[in-house]
């Protein structure tokens, strides 16, 4: 972590100062978890002939891009892209763009406080819900941080599967999880119709990427056993090139989970900046929402 922060400091001192201001207060868990994950990433990226710095450059590019997305968002009050077609054109069919985006996100998992809050919430609770012999599915697994943690906390589960629509994501996830027993499927989740249901489903930061998040949540409900549990996260007011569906606040997210047939068991929210509630709403600061949910009886 020290080396990563040092490199960022060289390239963008103001950003490094902002990161340091919250990271300096983090506990030992934070440092050991991030070391472990970045070590996995480093091993993978070096196996492709690149260096760790490549990933950090992707991260800095992602941060710069997000400032512009935020300006557009404040100008117009909506996300720049509102259809899958637009996003496909600008990102999905543009592998270079998608690649820096995903590699940048690897670092954001530990460098952004709201991203870490989401992971920490998962890490502290997954052990209580993932039971031996459970079938675990992750949808849109991307950088694989979550499935690695699920295996750490619930290693005696029956099986671990990861479905993702993007070849770059699958490649990244496979590289990062080298040596772990995970079944990867390159597929649009809407086209995934397995014969068996899953006991635990993780779906982090996916519903804002589709045009109709309700139908995706209903799909998750269908894939889940009646006694199953899901971990779902999504942001509000978080403009990025590939976010399509705008949630304006946590209430809209809770309402949609309810509408899809879920009951919220525990939840966590975290603003992306250190500001008062009032200022966060006024400036439309990005809000992270995460919840463990179960099917309504």
């Amino acid at each position, binding site marked *: 972590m020290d080396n990563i922060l040092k490199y960022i400091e060289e390239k963008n001192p103001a950003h490094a100062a902002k990161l340091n201001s919250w990271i300096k207060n983090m506990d030992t868990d934070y440092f050991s978890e991030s070391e472990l994950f970045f070590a996995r990433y480093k091993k993978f990226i070096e196996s492709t002939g690149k260096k760790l710095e490549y990933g950090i450059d992707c991260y800095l590019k992602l941060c710069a891009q997000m400032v512009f997305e935020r*300006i557009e968002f*404040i100008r117009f009050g909506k996300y720049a892209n509102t259809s899958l077609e637009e996003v496909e054109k600008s990102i999905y069919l543009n592998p270079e763009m998608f690649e820096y985006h995903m590699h940048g996100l690897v670092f954001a998992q530990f460098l952004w406080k709201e991203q870490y809050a989401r992971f920490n919430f998962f890490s502290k609770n997954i052990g209580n819900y993932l039971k031996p012999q459970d079938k675990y599915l992750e949808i849109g697994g991307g950088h694989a941080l979550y499935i690695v943690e699920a295996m750490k906390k619930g290693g005696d589960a029956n099986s671990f599967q990861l479905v993702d629509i993007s070849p770059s994501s699958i490649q990244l996830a496979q590289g990062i999880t080298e040596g772990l027993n995970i079944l990867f499927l390159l597929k649009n989740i809407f086209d995934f119709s397995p014969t068996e249901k899953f006991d635990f489903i993780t779906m982090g930061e996916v519903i804002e990427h589709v045009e109709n998040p309700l139908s995706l949540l209903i799909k998750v409900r269908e894939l889940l056993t009646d006694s199953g549990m899901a971990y779902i996260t999504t942001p509000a007011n978080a403009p990025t090139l590939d976010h399509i569906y705008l949630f304006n606040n946590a209430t809209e997210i809770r309402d949609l989970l309810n509408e899809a047939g879920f009951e919220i068991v525990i939840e966590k929210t975290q603003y992306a900046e250190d500001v008062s509630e009032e200022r966060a709403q006024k*400036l439309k600061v990005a809000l992270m929402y995460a919840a463990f949910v179960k099917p309504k009886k």
Partner: protein
Amino acid sequence: MEKTEILASMNKIWRDELDNEAITITESSTANDIEEWDSLSNIQLVVATEKLFKIRFNSAEIAQFKNVGEMIDCIKAKIG
């Protein structure tokens, strides 16, 4: 429009957006001089300025403003 007029209008925006009537900006003011002016509120200030003068800054311009004076020059060039 004269620079002083632009500055006066901007001063009003800074006071409104940053909720502080005591703020007085000059051409040499930067975010470092005003506590409430951070990277978050900067976006509000830029967008409110655009609205008032009915102009649009491009991303390179926004990234390069070093102080209020540079914003004024840019505004002046756009509104003629």
